[in-house]
């Protein structure tokens, strides 16, 4: 078993009203960033775990996301990176 650091992005599911993202987008427009389209505010979770290899580490984190870290009704997640710790 080797140590890994896996980072996960969890964001509101596409198509659902994201008032927080909209508020940030509006503020960015006010600041003059006219090119900004949609903004989505979510969570960034970093997990340190041990696994046989990177594939197994990622699989474990996907399971964690499905069961706890993300709500399947309202949120999408993506594995942003798997690195040896």
């Amino acid at each position, binding site marked *: 078993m080797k140590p890994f650091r896996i980072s996960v992005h969890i964001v*509101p599911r596409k198509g*659902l*009203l994201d*008032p*927080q993202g909209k*508020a940030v987008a509006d503020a960015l427009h006010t600041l003059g960033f006219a090119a900004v389209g949609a903004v989505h505010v979510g*969570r960034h979770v970093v997990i340190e775990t041990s696994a046989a290899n990177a594939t197994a580490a990622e699989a474990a984190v996907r399971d964690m996301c499905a069961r*706890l*870290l993300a*709500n399947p*009704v*309202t949120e999408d997640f993506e594995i942003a990176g798997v690195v040896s710790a």
Partner: protein
Amino acid sequence: MKFGIVSFPGSNCDDDAVFAATETLGQPAVKLWHKAHDLEGSDVIILPGGFSYGDYLRAGAIARFSPIMAEVAAHAQRGGPVIGICNGFQIACEAGLLPGALMRNAGLQFLSMPVTIRVENTITRWTALCREGQCLTMPIAHGEGRYTVDAATLERVEGEGLVVFRYVDAAGEATEAANVNGSLDNIAGVRNAAGNVVGLMPHPERALDTLLGSTDGRVLFESVLAAVHA
């Protein structure tokens, strides 16, 4: 009839729920610590409002893994009455006892105010003594109460009559203006298919005395009392 009120770390409406059972209904009540593995013979379970586990991760996400929740799920499976109020509703959804999820209010603000809700069906243990279409006034106090489900589930929730309460205006109409937190279809509360589990964002246990501005919450507790005695 014995009421069991689950206390999670961060629950803050558990005493109000005990008051509802004991002072309003004159029934025995016991607080059940979230680490307990036993409902202590409770006939009815209340998942109270508050900020269990500080709302870490998501409201209700951690609380659903508390040991007592396995017992609550088994009680619900047996047909025992369960109500989730505010944070308790969020926990019940996270635990899969009820369909859907509660997201950040559309206006981003924490809302603490009285609202009017309309009783959409009376087949639940908690609304048996209501009239269909009856309007009840009770307070809300939440930052994450925007009821959300995916399109397919919404069709089922509406099609099978699982909506128990909707936010309405003074005339009893489910208008956009009355939909204070931006919930889908003005949904303020839902039930499971069997009707023994109900969740809602408003606080019936804070609407039991004229001193508090409304006694409209009583009918929910009186309904479950009548249902269990029947």
